[in-house]
């Protein structure tokens, strides 16, 4: 049987100023799957993502690896759920690439040689090993995005949560990213406007609008539903147009 690794039940969350961001979210995520979370701007996609490793707690009906999120297991959960933020300038905050990728493993209190090893592995996986000693600021945008992913891969997470991984990438780097995500054997949660990327990398999709899950299901079923997408300010991805 496929294991349920994240269970979200009746999740509500309001911003400190009272605006309701998420209401009555129910979503299960299974081991090994790739799920796309799509929806228009301001739908609450990123807010939902922040709940997945305990940065936001909402009213806390989230179980990750069959555990409630609480202060005691927070560190454990954060090491299992790697969250990559949209803006790599926020994700990369240390002076050099090495320090950035090592930040997670060091916080996990790994011994020095294991830290170095996991940094090299993670950078190798995103093909950025030769930039290990460089200052993050002097990387190009595509390079920063790749290093951003390495910063969580080095923590050896079981779930990778990405916020708009393809935004601002040029076509070649976007293509590389898609191929990379396809071969990555992890549970993936991808928040994106780029429905073409979702089509190629995700088996399941959840459509969110105004803080509610409108529908969740097989990727093709949802992305082929032109009228549904258009009611929620989205557009059918181009490859599906040609099919008709």
């Amino acid at each position, binding site marked *: 049987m496929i294991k349920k690794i994240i269970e979200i039940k009746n999740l509500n969350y309001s911003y400190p100023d009272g605006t309701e961001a998420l209401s009555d979210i129910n979503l299960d995520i299974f081991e090994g799957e790739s799920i796309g979370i799509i929806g228009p701007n301001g739908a609450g996609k990123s807010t939902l993502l922040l709940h997945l490793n305990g940065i936001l707690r909402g009213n806390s009906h989230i179980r990750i690896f069959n555990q409630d999120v609480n202060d005691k297991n927070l560190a454990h959960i954060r090491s299992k759920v790697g*969250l990559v933020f949209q803006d790599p300038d*926020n*994700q990369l905050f240390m*002076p050099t690439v090495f*320090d950035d990728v*090592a930040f997670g493993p060091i916080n996990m209190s790994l011994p020095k040689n294991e830290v170095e090893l996991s940094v090299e592995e993670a950078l190798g996986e995103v093909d950025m090993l030769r930039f290990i000693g460089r*200052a993050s*600021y002097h990387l190009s945008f595509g390079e920063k995005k790749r290093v951003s992913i390495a910063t969580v891969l080095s*923590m050896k997470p079981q779930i990778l949560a990405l916020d708009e991984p393809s935004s601002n990438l040029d076509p070649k780097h976007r293509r590389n990213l898609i191929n990379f995500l396809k071969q990555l054997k992890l549970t993936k949660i991808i928040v994106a406007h780029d429905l073409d990327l979702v089509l190629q990398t995700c088996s399941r999709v959840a459509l969110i609008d105004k803080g509610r899950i409108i529908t969740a299901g097989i990727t093709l079923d949802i992305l082929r539903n032109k009228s549904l997408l258009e009611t929620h300010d989205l557009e059918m991805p181009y490859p599906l147009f040609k099919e008709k």
Partner: protein
Amino acid sequence: MKHAYIDEHSNIDSYIHRLDPRIKIICLVAFILFVIFTKPTSFIAFALYGALIAVLILLSKIPISFILKRSIVIIPFVLMIAIFIPFLKKGEVAGGYSFGTLKLTVTYDGLMIFWNILVKAYLCILSMILLITSTKLSDLLKALEKLKFPSVFVIILSFMYRYIFVVQDELMKMRQAKEARSVGGSRWFHAKVLANMIGVLFMKTYERGENVYLAMCSRGFDGKIKTIDGFRLKMNDFCFLLIMIGILTGIRILGS
């Protein structure tokens, strides 16, 4: 976009660059202390300190013009502080000006203090420039941390190093967006727009700070920045430290 570097000459491969940053910091502090505690009249000591720093600069292979340019930038600040001293110090009068009833006199003691401040400041500035340009800033920060410098300061410096250009870019982009829409308008109006831009920039950096904090938390940050020890002292480093202390002591004895 052209990226500015704070530590643009830190990638040169030279004897000075290869030294352990901790040793460099200790030597810098020692050098500054020795210079500060030199008697103003021991001109030979100042000349030798100058020669020492010149040799170190030559060893570092950093372009001399670069170091001179950097050092000159700081001179006006020193001058501004020191320029009034010759007029205020009482003592044997070296010369004077009179503007009607107002009389300005310059004393020998005052001039000596002025020279003292100027030469000491310049020597210290040269040594600091040498340290900063011959060390990667990230290594320098790590070395400070290892030398038990308060970690709050190290963290603040490291974030400054990481984000100063990001903020600068943001300001530049805002300015370009403003220029692109600026057609005429009074000077006063533009000044007001600038004030708004500074406000927006503040909000942006504030928000960025919050987002960076979230990114740190999601990778297990618990209030303490931990790094792994990357330095190892070599024979060379000890030799350099000993030689430097030896030379400094030698100059001190010679000068007194």
